[in-house]
C-alpha cells in the first residue's frame, strides 16, 4: 500500500514510491551490500534522508526495522497494533529527520519512541478491553500494567541494541561468512557435513572457517565498540549504552 494510491488531490504526499521495490524484495543482507549506503553511519543516513535521499531512507528502514520490531515484540501487541506502532514510529522519524541530523543517537531515539507508543496502546487496551481472562479486578489490571511498564526497560533496550549490533556486524561480513554462520547459527544448526556440502568446502575446514568468521564478526565496528577493558564496566548506565551504539561509525 502506498500513500498515493487513493489520495485526494492535493492532500496526499508526492507520488514517488520507487524505492519500495528494491528493499522489500531483499530485506535481508544476504544479497551482498550495495556500495555506499550500506556502510554509511546512522548520522550520515539521517542527514542524507533529511536532504531527500530516498536510498538513505530505504537503508534506514532496512537497517532499523528489526530494532523497532524487537521493541514492539517485547510489549506483546497483536499484529494490527504492532503494525500501527511501527508505521507511527517511521512517520515520526520523517518529522524528526531535521532535528536528529546533528545527533548520532538514532537507535536510542527509535527505541524510546517505539516504547512510548507501545505503552500508549497497552494502556488503551486496558481500558477498551475490560475482560481479562486471568484477572478482572481493578487491582489485577493495575498490577499487570505496572508489570508491563516495569519490565526492566534497561534490559529490553540492552537486548535490542545488542541484537541490532550483531545484525549490523553480520551484514558487514563477506557473503560466504554470512552463509556459513547463518547455517551454523540456525535452530537446529546445520551439521558440518551439510555446511561443507552447501558451501563446497571440505568438512575439515568448516570449523576453522567458522572460527575465522566469528573473529571477523567481533572485529566489525558495530561489535568492536562493545569490547572494553575488563574492569571498566562498573557503571553500565543506559546512557553509556546509548552512547556506545549511537557513536558507532
Amino acid at each position: 500500500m502506498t500513500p498515493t494510491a487513493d489520495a485526494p488531490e492535493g492532500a496526499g504526499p508526492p507520488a514517488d514510491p520507487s524505492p519500495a521495490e528494491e528493499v522489500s524484495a531483499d530485506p535481508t543482507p544476504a544479497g551482498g551490500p550495495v556500495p555506499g549506503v550500506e556502510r554509511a553511519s546512522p548520522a550520515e543516513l539521517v542527514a542524507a534522508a533529511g536532504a531527500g535521499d530516498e536510498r538513505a531512507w530505504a537503508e534506514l528502514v532496512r537497517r532499523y526495522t528489526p530494532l523497532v520490531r524487537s521493541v514492539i515484540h517485547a510489549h506483546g501487541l497483536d499484529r494490527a497494533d504492532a503494525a500501527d506502532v511501527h508505521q507511527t514510529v517511521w512517520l515520526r522519524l520523517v518529522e524528526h529527520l531535521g532535528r536528529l541530523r546533528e545527533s548520532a543517537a538514532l537507535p536510542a531515539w527509535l527505541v524510546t519512541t517505539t516504547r512510548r507508543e507501545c505503552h500508549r496502546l497497552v494502556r488503551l487496551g486496558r481500558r477498551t478491553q475490560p475482560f481479562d481472562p486471568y484477572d478482572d479486578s481493578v487491582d489485577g489490571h493495575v498490577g499487570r500494567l505496572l508489570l508491563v511498564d516495569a519490565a526492566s526497560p534497561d534490559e529490553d533496550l540492552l537486548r535490542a541494541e545488542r541484537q541490532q549490533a550483531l545484525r549490523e556486524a553480520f551484514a558487514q561480513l563477506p557473503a560466504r561468512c554470512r552463509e556459513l554462520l547463518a547455517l551454523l547459527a540456525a535452530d537446529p544448526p546445520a551439521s558440518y557435513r551439510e555446511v561443507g556440502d552447501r558451501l563446497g568446502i571440505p568438512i575439515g575446514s568448516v570449523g576453522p572457517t567458522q572460527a575465522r568468521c566469528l573473529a571477523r564478526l567481533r572485529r566489525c565496528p558495530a561489535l568492536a565498540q562493545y569490547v572494553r577493558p575488563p574492569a571498566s564496566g562498573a557503571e553500565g548506565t543506559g546512557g553509556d549504552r546509548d552512547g556506545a551504539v549511537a557513536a558507532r561509525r
Partner: protein
Amino acid sequence: MEQWPPAGDDALLAELGAALLDSGPVPEEFLDTALAAFSWRTVDAGWTVAELTFDSACDLAPAGALRSGGTDRTLTFHGGPVAMEIEVTRTGIVGQLSTGCDGRVSARTPDGRYEDVPMDAMGYFSMGPLPPGPVQFRARTAEYAMVTTWVLLR
C-alpha cells in the same frame, strides 16, 4: 558487568542465531509503510510541528483537570505558543485550538484520506470518528499553520 560480546565462540554463535531469528522475515506491510512514510517528508515543510505534550492514556492529568463525561481520551499538542486539545469520544472528536480564530482543521491518515472541518471563532471544531492507525491533525488560521505529530487514536 558481564562481558559482551561473549568470549566463547559457541555463546557468540548462539546470540547471533537469536538475533537473526528475532529479526525474522519482516512482514512486507511493515517495510512498505515504513518506506512510504518518507513521501510525507516535504508535505508540510514550513509548518510548525506540534508535539504531543499530554495524553490521558499515559500521562497523569494536570491537577484540577476534569474530563468531561463521555470522553475516552484527551490529548494536547503544542507547537510554539499555540496548543491544540483533542478529546476522543465514542462518537468522534472534538477539539480546540488555543488561538481562538476562524480557520480550518483537517485530520489525515498515512494513505492520504482526510477529514476537513471548520473551526469556529473560539477555535472549537468537531469531526466524526477517525479510522484506526496513525493520524495527524493540521490547523490553519489567518496567522497560523500547524501540523501535529502523528498519533495513534485507535
